[in-house]
């Protein structure tokens, strides 16, 4: 992972360069994965770690290596959120494949600790639905990544995006509607 190019990659991805976006994703995913694995080993294979903490540590680690040119937290998160989603999904898949292994759990801080019943049968459908949502409206899929997978509150996301709370709340409702519709297809 060549971090000196992170800032460059970011601006190229911002400009719509798919190759740069792919590289950026890989670099972020690699970093998240590395940190998660490190924590996992350090805790004897059993880890309960909030996604928000993991992202924050990743940000600090990467920013520490490239302090001068590193982008702000909001821009970082816009990309890292999707990498986080992939990481969680991959762990979920691995856990399911191993049945017993992968004691890795990423939890949310705050009050949301209950999954909807039956959600665990839907993993692949959800992954697919999120991809399609990203194709239709990247902003909404990023919102799902930030809120659902990374555990940021809607208020925090509004701050990150410098928009009103109401806008984010309405976006969230739209994302739910759209995703539900896409899953039903």
């Amino acid at each position: 992972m060549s971090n000196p190019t992170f800032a460059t990659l970011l601006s190229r991805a911002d400009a719509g360069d798919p190759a740069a976006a792919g590289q950026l994703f890989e670099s972020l995913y690699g970093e998240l994965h590395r940190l998660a694995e490190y924590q996992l080993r350090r805790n004897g294979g059993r880890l309960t770690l909030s996604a928000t903490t993991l992202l924050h540590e990743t940000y600090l680690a990467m920013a520490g290596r490239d302090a001068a040119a590193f982008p702000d937290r909001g821009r970082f998160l816009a990309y890292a959120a999707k990498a986080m989603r992939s990481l969680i999904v991959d762990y979920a898949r691995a856990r399911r494949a191993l049945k017993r292994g992968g004691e890795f759990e990423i939890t949310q801080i705050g009050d949301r600790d209950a999954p909807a019943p039956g959600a665990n049968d839907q993993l692949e459908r959800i992954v697919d639905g999120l991809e399609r949502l990203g194709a239709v409206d990247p902003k909404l899929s990023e919102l799902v990544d930030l809120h659902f997978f990374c555990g940021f509150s809607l208020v925090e996301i509004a701050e990150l995006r410098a928009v009103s709370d109401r806008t984010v709340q309405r976006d969230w409702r739209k994302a739910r509607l759209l995703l539900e519709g896409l899953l039903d297809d």
Partner: protein
Amino acid sequence: MTPLDRDRWAEIEPLLDQVLDLPPEARPEWLDRLRVDSPTLADAIESLLAAEPAPNEAWLDHDPAALFGKRPGLTGQTLGNYTLDGPIGRGGMGSVWLAHRNDGRFEGKVAIKLLNLALIGRAAEQRFVQEGTVLARLNHPNIARLLDAGVSDTGQPYLVLEHIEGDRIDEHADRRRLDPRARIALFLDVLKAVAAAHANLVVHRDLKPSNVMVTAAGTVKLLDFGIAKLVDEGRPVGADGTLTEEGGRAFTPQYAAPEQLEGRPVSTAADIYSLGVMLYELLSGRHPLEPESDTAAGFVVAAATTDARRLSDAVTPTRNPSDDATDRDAAARSATPRRLRRLYIGDLDNILGKALKRNPDERYQTAAGFADDLERYLADQPVSARADSWGYRARKFARRHRTGLVAAAVAIVALVGGSWFSFEQMTTARRERDHARDALRRSAASVSFETLLFRVLDQGNQSFTYQELLSRARDAVEKEYRGDPIGRMQLAIQFAQIYLRRDDAETAGQILTRAQAIADSLGRPDWQARARCELAAGQAMAGKGDSALVLVRAAGAFLTKAADVEEGTLNACDYGAGHAWLMLRQPDSAQRLFRRIVGRYQAAGDTLTEAYLVALNDQASAAFQAGRPREAGAVVLRLLDLSRQGNTADPWSRISLIVNADMGFEALGEYRADREFLARVVGDSAAIDSVAARAPLVLARFAAALHRIGVSDSARYWIDRALERPDDLGPRFVVAAHLTAAEIAWTLGDRGGFERHRGLVARLAERLTTKGKLELGYLEILSASGALLPAAIRTRLDSLGFGAAGMNQALLRGHLIAAAGRLNSAGAFEDARRYASAAAGIAAVDSLAATHSAAVGHALLEQARAEAGLGDKAAARTSIQAALAPLRFGFGEGHPLVRAAVALQDSVGR
């Protein structure tokens, strides 16, 4: 619907923004208008809106942990119209969650109590909801409202309560350093709320500081009113009438009234007691009972045995200058200990004393009365509560005394089967008595047994078991008394007695055989006789009556040769022979010998000694076995009277008396008296405990008594405590305790515990007496199942010599009842009737009054069930009619067996 892509979404999104801002009811009209211009868009939006999941229902509203297949938590789940937001507490009855209404009708937060599922049965759900509705009407500004009660689709009972934010009343008072008057004023609000609830016939049953909150505005709010009752009465009764008590009773030992701890019926008076404890703590910072330990058990013991300490004494500083707790407590009340004491002496002492009376009838009858006195106190007017007068104390003493006498009257029955305790009492007493004489007789070489033990103990500072201690002491004796055969022999006899008391007749026998050899080698006929008689006693205890008699006869031959025989030896020989005759079921011969021992003590004026009591006990035991219960009763009355006059310092003797009384109650079917008696003595045994490390035995008996009357969860607690010290129980009692534990586990539905204890019993089986084998058979009856059951029971009872002479009738009766119960459940009514009627016969013969014997009631109930099962309604009617009074008396009105009997009577008619 056209596949959704970026471009189409760009068209839809602004429209969706519009429609989402509309209230749901305005949407159809909006869509209709849109449909006029662009029907496809309208359709697309309509179908999107239709897919909208309810809040909290979409996977997106939860945690990605769901993707890992994690078990669902509760946050976000809905119960009726409420959504759980997060846990805020957890207690014995279940967990408490913060929640909000999800239908938009009520904005505020509520607390939802999820009751432990184990506390409530499905059959009780309807009742639960009904009761909840009654409680919901309990509307008082100082009582947190019960808003709703229900049972979820999954069977989870829940209560929706007003959510109170505030501090516990005691923390509130301490933080503000409220002085006593302010504390009383605050407490008056509590009392008024309780009075309002009592006026609605709602009892709290678990009043404690954590259930009394004070809000930031200073308003008192009582939590959980009526919930304990709701839960308690909702507990299921099994098909066979057993009470399932997985969840335990809903109260807190620290604040529970004595009647709650003893499982007696609870009324508003229990709340008065709890309130008394709370006010006492608020005013003094101390608990009124001074338990030895702050554990639940400590409070149970204290509540069963001690009266509340005077409030003014609680705030009096101790002489120990390092104890500044009273200063601290006083400072938290903006006062000094001296000032508090002055304040509390008199009226407040009396008020608290009245609220904390052990007898519910002597407390304030209402919370309003309690409040009234406190208000009068604050207004410097005379209060109604009075200090206990001399007359009152005397009456109370007499009442206690009388209970003791009743206990004594039946104690005697216990000695029929085993006579273990009389034996041990004897050895203990004789040791003390003879020790004094022998010490005088022996000169230079004398050493007391205790000194020896202490010296052995001093040899190292590591801890060791009693067993190890004894074997070290024996080694020491061998070494130090090599040149002193008489000393060695005397000590050997003492050792043998200890081993006998520890139920190890084998080791005792070995030691005594050696003692006998020493005596023979010395050629001293008195000692030769003594050693043989001691050995005879051991043999008798091991059930070998014949060989015991042979030994006593041999001893007699030596006694005729002896020039000077001390009384101890004569007594030992009569004692050994007497117990041999008891074993051989020749009680008249035994009684003659025991009477002779009694006569010797009387002649010597030794009537206040333990040894005399022991001899009386034996005499009574023989009288009982001879079928002369009145005579036996008279002797035991004297016995208990004397034990009270004399300084019965020997703890083991006291325990023996206790256990004898308990066994007597059991044999007579006097379960209620038994439980009340034991509850009183358990505290006593705790004191004994520290002296002799023997109390586990009483605890085990207490557990068995609690179990008999259906308080099995408490029984489990005590039996576990007893089994913590198997060494102190002795081998045979360990077996008995495991048997009890297995039965309790069975009743509680704990199959694992049942199998574990049963396994231990089976492993120890070679040590079992007839009694033990019978008990083991009982466990087999309990666990036999299905078609095998009738056959298994019959084989078991037959192989045990059903009906044979010499069998412990109380035990046999218990097993017959159990067998009948199981057979009734299995539909084998013929067999059930046979066993139940045999049991009823035994129980009636062994009862003081058939209408007081719980065993009679229980047996008749099983008999009635069998008769009903056989279609013989007339017989069933008669049996059930006869069963009701003894069941009510023995078990109490609320007991499942009583309820089962009433239900059966309803079905067969009166």
